[in-house]
């Protein structure tokens, strides 16, 4: 629905890191972990409990986030402290954000058209 699709073939060189970011974001539990971490550094067990998840299951999700470079983990005594790294998230968000805006611009034009159609319908018996 858009001639900007013309640029499709330019994309093959998107970095594999971005693939990993998208894979990491594709699971609701991992998105929940990211939301928690946006409040600051958290212990791994603190992340697991609100998700009703076992420690090993949470560890698995955190590993995926680590591979995508979205989370950094440091071990302090018996604690595994996780911290959000915003930069890759920023790349990924920016990536979809521009796509979103291009479409949103069209839908705003559609909003105006619909207003017009509604008023035509009101005035036509």
């Amino acid at each position, binding site marked *: *629905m*858009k*001639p*900007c*699709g*013309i*640029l*499709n*073939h*330019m*994309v*093959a060189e*998107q970095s594999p890191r*971005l*693939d990993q970011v*998208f*894979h990491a*974001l*594709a699971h609701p539990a991992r998105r929940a972990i990211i939301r928690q*971490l*946006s409040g600051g550094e958290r212990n791994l067990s603190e992340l697991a409990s609100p998700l009703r998840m076992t420690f090993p299951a949470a560890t698995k999700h955190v590993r995926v986030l680590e591979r995508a470079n979205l989370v950094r983990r440091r071990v302090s005594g018996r604690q595994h402290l996780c911290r*959000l790294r*915003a*930069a890759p*998230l*920023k790349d990924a*968000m*920016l*990536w*979809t*954000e*521009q*796509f*979103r*805006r*291009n*479409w*949103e*611009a*069209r*839908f705003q*034009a*559609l*909003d*105006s*058209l*619909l*207003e017009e*159609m*509604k008023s035509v*319908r009101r005035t036509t018996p």
Partner: protein
Amino acid sequence: MNPQGLQVSTPTDTTIVLIRTFHAPRQLVWEAFTDPAKMRRWMLPPPGWIMTVCECEVRVGGALRLAWKSEDADPVMTLDGVFTEAIPHERMVHTETMRLGSGETVGTLLETHEFSEKSGVTTMRITQAYDSKDARDGAIASGMDQGVEAGFKQLDAMLAHAA
């Protein structure tokens, strides 16, 4: 980000989902999506392009045909599709193949539109299913050349507390 505005998500490796609400009954939204005269009003091409063809025959087996032309040069771009499902005011599915003037195919996908209405507000859900992850990623990346810097500034503000 405006929560009332368009939401874009990528639930699988090959799909993009667009969700948005419109303050209008779904009959009107449907009409705006399927009546060529109305489609031309809002399906705005990128700057420097004009829409030259807009045909839409929304019935199973019916054709969708759109074409654009660059204002200052030869390039043309066409989009051809066939409707595989059409339930008026509710759901339509069509194939979509984009080609350059040279005939080279630059992308194919299956697009599903779903409309539901509650108290005069219509929720639209578009699912774009691409052939491959590369094609999906390409569709998202295709708008990247515009306004990137402005986007960065906004995101900086948004993510300031997360870093």
